[in-house]
């Protein structure tokens, strides 16, 4: 990593950390039902929604009813997105005149956006009408993120409460998440992005003649360039903030209209981690001890930072096999150097490496460089960040409740080590809780490894592979790692728009989202019902450096141990062969 790269990383982290407390406190106020400066503006809209939808703001439900509400809402979202795609050819607002989307792809995309994965088996600018993008995808960008946040808030209440039978209302928290948090931040971010050159228009495409002579693959002259535009900034803002990641264009944030400058890049990068980081603080406020929140954030950063450095180092080192051809890969003030295949010059190595690590750490999945063309070690990091279970930042909401499950496992083993029935923030950890925690931990490796096994065993899976050797394996592994963790990024060389990947990936996304959310809610319900165990000298403090290190070890060991053989056959051996 270059010095400028190190400075860039440091500056980024400092800015991120500076936002944690104010945004975290604001969100805690919102979820606590306290007044904020936005209430005069948004309060009436919120009340209107409550009235129309028949929601009583002080109604509270137990975990089961909340889970049912969440499932119903997501099922409705799925139906809408699916139907919109299938019928977009007959609907208005389709300047590209795109026909209806085939069923397997429509299924995949609907699951993908409802589950906050935003895996895109399609090219945005060549498949989806503006109507589908706006009414289907953009709406789901908001509400799938808000679903994650609402489940998290219910989960936190489970930890904050004692001897309680309710967790709150999914509907109230869902609406708060959109109206008070996601929407205002999206408006600000989208305008910031427009100022940098991200397009925001309802026009279709603009055709402009080429300056130089251009011929296509068949040798025919191509006189002009058709430039796709659209209501991009508004979608980009929420896809970054909501850890959705589904871009307007095929190449996502590498596309100059989605991410035109280093400034827009930094803003979007910040937006990826903004809410997941601040939610840690919100958690601390809600459980009555902000140190608990900082501890979790610290654990995330302790894992995150070394991986950024590893990626940046690997990408900056470049690809040895080019050198023979007289290619200069040394970074200098005049050029970025390193492995530039699949990367944009304006971002260089550091912003690409940082983005790749952040987007896989958080389950965002947007990309500003092509992960498939990363060096083996760079690709390794992106895989590992997802395989840790999307708990290092993770998805908005879902990342933190995933991390809190790891906390419970860490507390459990640590509690044994200090000779006391484990307890976390006053809750005794009992068999039922471990059962739910185990379910949460269990399902992800099952999906990822099972899916990958299917992918490499079936011709339907193998035929989509586009890179030779171990990297071909990595492509399939990446696809199921991404869908099995609701990330959405890809080793995009894999031809993923096939019935096999659309269906298998769709199932992986479906299971990984809801299989995790429901046991998480069940766990919250169980925790909330417990009597408070007062802390004593014998209680293990969970906000110390020692506990943070232990948590990091648990996340790394539980996450990494499962995937070492797979990684050895993919990126690790590829690196050794380099």
């Amino acid at each position, binding site marked *: 990593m270059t010095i*400028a*790269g190190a400075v860039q990383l440091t500056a980024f982290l400092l800015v991120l950390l500076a936002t944690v407390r104010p945004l975290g406190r604001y969100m805690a106020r919102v979820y606590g039902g306290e007044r904020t400066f936005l209430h005069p503006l948004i309060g009436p809209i919120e009340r209107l*929604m409550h009235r*129309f*939808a028949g*929601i009583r703001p002080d109604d509270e439900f137990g975990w089961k009813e909340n889970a049912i509400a969440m499932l*119903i809402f997501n099922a409705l979202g799925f139906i*809408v997105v699916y139907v919109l795609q299938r019928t977009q050819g007959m609907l208005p607002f389709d300047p590209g005149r795109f026909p209806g989307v085939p069923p397997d792809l429509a299924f995949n995309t609907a699951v993908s956006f409802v589950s906050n994965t935003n895996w895109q088996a399609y090219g945005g*600018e060549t498949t989806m009408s503006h109507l589908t993008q*706006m009414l289907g995808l*953009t709406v789901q960008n908001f509400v799938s993120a808000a679903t994650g946040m609402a489940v998290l808030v219910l989960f936190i209440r489970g930890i904050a409460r004692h001897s309680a039978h309710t967790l709150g209302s999914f*509907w109230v928290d869902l609406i708060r998440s959109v109206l008070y948090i996601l*929407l205002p931040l999206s408006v600000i971010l989208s*305008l910031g992005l*427009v100022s940098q050159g991200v397009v*925001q228009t309802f026009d279709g*495409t*603009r055709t402009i003649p*080429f*300056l*130089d002579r251009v011929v296509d*693959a068949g040798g025919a002259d191509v006189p002009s*360039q*058709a430039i796709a535009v659209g209501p991009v*900034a*508004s979608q980009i803002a929420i896809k970054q903030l909501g850890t959705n990641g589904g871009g307007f264009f*095929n190449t996502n944030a*590498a596309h*100059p*209209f989605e991410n035109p*400058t*280093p400034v827009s890049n*930094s803003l979007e990068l910040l937006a990826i981690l903004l809410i997941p980081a601040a939610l840690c603080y919100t958690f601390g406020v809600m459980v009555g001890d902000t140190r608990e929140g900082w501890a979790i954030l610290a654990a995330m950063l302790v894992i995150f930072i070394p991986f950024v450095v590893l990626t940046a180092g690997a990408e900056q080192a*470049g690809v040895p*096999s*080019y050198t023979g*051809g*007289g*290619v*200069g*890969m040394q970074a200098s003030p*005049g*050029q*970025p150097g390193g492995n530039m*295949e699949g990367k*944009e*010059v*304006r971002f*260089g*190595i550091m912003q690409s490496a940082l983005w790749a690590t952040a987007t896989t750490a958080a389950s965002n999945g947007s990309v*500003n460089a092509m992960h498939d*063309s990363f060096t083996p070690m760079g690709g390794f990091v992106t895989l590992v960040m997802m395989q840790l279970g999307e708990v290092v930042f993770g998805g908005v909401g879902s990342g933190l409740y995933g991390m809190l499950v790891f906390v419970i496992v860490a507390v459990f083993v640590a509690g044994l080590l200090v000779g006391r029935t484990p307890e976390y923030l006053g809750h005794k950890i009992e068999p039922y809780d471990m059962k739910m925690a185990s379910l949460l931990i269990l399902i992800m490796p099952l999906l990822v490894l099972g899916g990958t096994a299917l992918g490499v065993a079936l011709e339907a899976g193998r035929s989509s592979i*586009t*890179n*030779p050797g*171990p990297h071909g394996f*990595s492509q399939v592994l990446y696809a199921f790692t991404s869908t099995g963790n609701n990330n959405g990024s890809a080793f995009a*060389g894999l031809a993923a728009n096939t019935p096999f990947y659309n269906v298998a990936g769709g199932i992986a996304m479906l299971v990984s989202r809801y299989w995790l959310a429901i046991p998480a809610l069940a766990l919250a319900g169980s925790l909330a019902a417990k009597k408070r165990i007062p802390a004593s000298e014998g209680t293990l403090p969970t906000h110390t450096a020692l506990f943070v290190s232990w948590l990091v070890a648990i996340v790394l060991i539980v996450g990494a141990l499962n995937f070492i053989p797979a990684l050895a056959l993919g990126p690790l051996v*590829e690196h050794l062969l*380099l």
Partner: protein
Amino acid sequence: MVAKHTRTGLVVLVMFTVITGVIYPVMVTAVAQLTFSHEANGSIIIRDGTAVGSALIGQPFDSPGYFWSRPSATAPFPYNAAASGGSNLSSMNPALVERVHHAVARIRSADTTMHQPVPVDLVTASGSGLDPHISPDAARVQVPRIAREHGISSGLLYALVDHHTERPLFGFFGAPRVNVLLLNLDLDGLRQTGGTR
């Protein structure tokens, strides 16, 4: 219970569809069109009243008399701004290594006097296939060829490259870069004025 929540869910979804799916993008578009109309519409470059390109979307250049842009992996022709795409070739993929070596060979054959290493960005495809930039070094290595081609002094061309070089923000955010289309547009201008600028 299910019926009650289904009703609630339907209403909430419809209202959010209106708020986040219609009002939000329309409002952002309206404000964007009012405040940043140039940027919101694609940062189109107008020369003599006609649009000649977007300042953000690259164009392919491989005539000896232009600064070349980076290889592009879009199909069916390079820099297809209606279907962005990267090569997605892995580092170890022989196809990639061969393509890089081929690109290097082309650059060297277009300027046999060139001996320094070719900056990596000039022989690798960008992620979007639409990268408008090359690195300043990648522009500078092309100066002798272009100078020879048009009979313009290298000094002027180096100055032109410097003029178009965007530095990283605060010295470290992003990477140094040169917008190839803008550079070539100015190069065209320079040629018309006969190299005296």
